[in-house]
């Protein structure tokens, strides 16, 4: 990556005042029965992504997630695709999207007259809407960005190279007035006291400790920590060892608040996304895979997601670009076309953490300006949304004044 990425870049200003770095239209299926029609609507159209919810029974969590995703700053237009008889409240979702100023249409397959007719109508609407889009014209800088981070396919190198690189980038992003989100309370077990010491208020410190304790109880009840066989094959032995490495993604600065899935971050600063539901397990694992977590980071407002990997992940996401930071030099050599940044060089003494952090800042700017990430170029647009419960955090978790 060159080091001449501009310090400001052009993005998209939405009618609700938010600014985005992509202009994605989305086809949204509101039940599995509408998924194939939504996919056919999007096929071959540039920058039309598919997201949705497969369940037929209503879900407050899924509804909240889709509200945030459909009004995400990277999203310019929304086509809702409903079979017609499912439980999802499509009218309410459409109202929220319309109130944000984004063009929205609702296609009910049973009313439009089946598969072919719905596909034709959806494609025509999207083509017309995309033709009317205004393009990049908002001058943006790092302070406008909301950046999330996740680690996936972690190994013994993740916590030494890629994760601390992201930590340095987060420190610099927040110092520049931007917003950073790290996540997975269940992957921070063992780090709660140190994390609490970074909280900006004592109330927040107590919340952080209580939420990690809750996560430990939840995973214990599930009988399985957030730890995969690949983690062990890569040299990580215990949950707390993995957590220690994961924690370094958060950098060293003050923690300003805690949010939950479907809750938009309220302002600049560093936030912890608590992905673990309250109470006894009801719907299964807090997130069934990395993409379920990426979707939650994006729903919090993340314009892009920094994904650190040691074993080598290939995924991207709908709506927001995913930047791959590869921790392991062997993995990078094997899978370089899937990676954006080679942090494994640090392990071999070929680069310092600060040098790779500079490089990652450049990649963030270039990506925000429109340059495709490796996963975007390869067509990765994964999306996962399942049943879950989630309650927004209260005042003790949110900064009052900054």
């Amino acid at each position, binding site marked *: 990556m060159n080091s001449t990425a501009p310090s400001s870049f052009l993005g998209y200003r939405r009618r609700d005042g938010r600014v985005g770095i992509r202009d994605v239209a989305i086809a949204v299926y509101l039940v599995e029965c509408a998924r194939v029609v939504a996919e056919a609507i999007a096929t071959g159209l540039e920058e039309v992504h598919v997201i949705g919810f497969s369940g037929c029974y209503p879900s407050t969590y899924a509804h909240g997630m889709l509200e945030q995703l459909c009004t995400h700053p990277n999203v310019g237009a929304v086509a809702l695709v409903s079979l017609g008889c499912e439980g999802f409240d499509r009218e309410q979702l459409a109202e929220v999207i319309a109130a944000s100023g984004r063009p929205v249409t609702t296609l009910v397959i049973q009313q439009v007259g089946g598969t072919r007719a719905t596909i034709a109508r959806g494609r025509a609407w999207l083509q017309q809407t995309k033709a009317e889009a205004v393009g990049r014209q908002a001058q943006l800088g790092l302070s406008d960005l909301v950046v999330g981070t996740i680690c996936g396919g972690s*190994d*013994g190198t993740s916590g030494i190279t890629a994760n601390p690189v992201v930590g340095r980038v987060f420190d610099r992003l927040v110092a520049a007035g931007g917003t950073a989100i790290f996540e997975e309370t269940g992957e921070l*077990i*063992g780090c709660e006291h140190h994390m609490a010491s970074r909280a900006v208020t004592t109330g927040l410190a107590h919340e952080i400790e209580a939420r990690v304790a809750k996560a430990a109880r939840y995973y214990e009840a599930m009988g399985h920590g957030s730890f995969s066989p690949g983690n062990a*094959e*890569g*040299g990580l032995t215990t949950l707390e060892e993995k957590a220690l490495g994961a924690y370094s993604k958060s950098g060293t600065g003050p923690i300003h608040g805690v949010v939950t899935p479907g809750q938009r971050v309220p302002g600049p600063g560093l936030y912890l996304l608590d992905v673990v539901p309250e109470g006894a397990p009801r719907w299964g694992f807090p997130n069934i895979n990395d993409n379920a977590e990426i979707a939650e980071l994006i729903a919090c407002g993340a314009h892009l997601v920094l994904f650190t990997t040691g074993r080598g992940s290939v995924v991207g996401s709908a709506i927001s670009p995913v930047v791959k930071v590869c921790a*392991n*030099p062997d993995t990078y050599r094997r899978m370089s076309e899937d990676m954006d940044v080679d942090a494994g060089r640090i392990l071999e003494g070929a680069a310092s953490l600060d040098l790779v952090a500079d490089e990652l800042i450049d990649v963030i700017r270039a990506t925000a300006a429109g340059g495709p990430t490796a996963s975007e170029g390869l067509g990765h647009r994964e999306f996962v949304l399942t049943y879950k419960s989630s309650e927004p955090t209260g005042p003790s978790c949110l900064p009052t004044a900054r």
Partner: protein
Amino acid sequence: MSAAAADPGRGERITPTLLALAAGDDVLIATRNLDPGRHHTSAGAVVVVLEPVALGHKVASRPIAAGEHVVRYGMPIGSATTAIAAGAWVHTHNLASDYIATIARRGGQR
């Protein structure tokens, strides 16, 4: 670091293959796939590695007794389930979580 010996210092360029993350750590990280034998640490010591250790995996920097906390980067990452010799590979066969047990895929050990 009781397994360490002073570097003989014959003037050749030494490439450390074991990363010492923090002073006083009980484990060192392999920066490449290691064969048994003498290996240099990033802190300037030498450790005799007792068995093959894969990149990213851990090597004991000192003898560790069963039940002792094992410290990496200054933080405990679990407790030893058996005595561990200096230079031995440290992994799921001799180290366990103090929180939630690790589940490995059968045959997945490297």
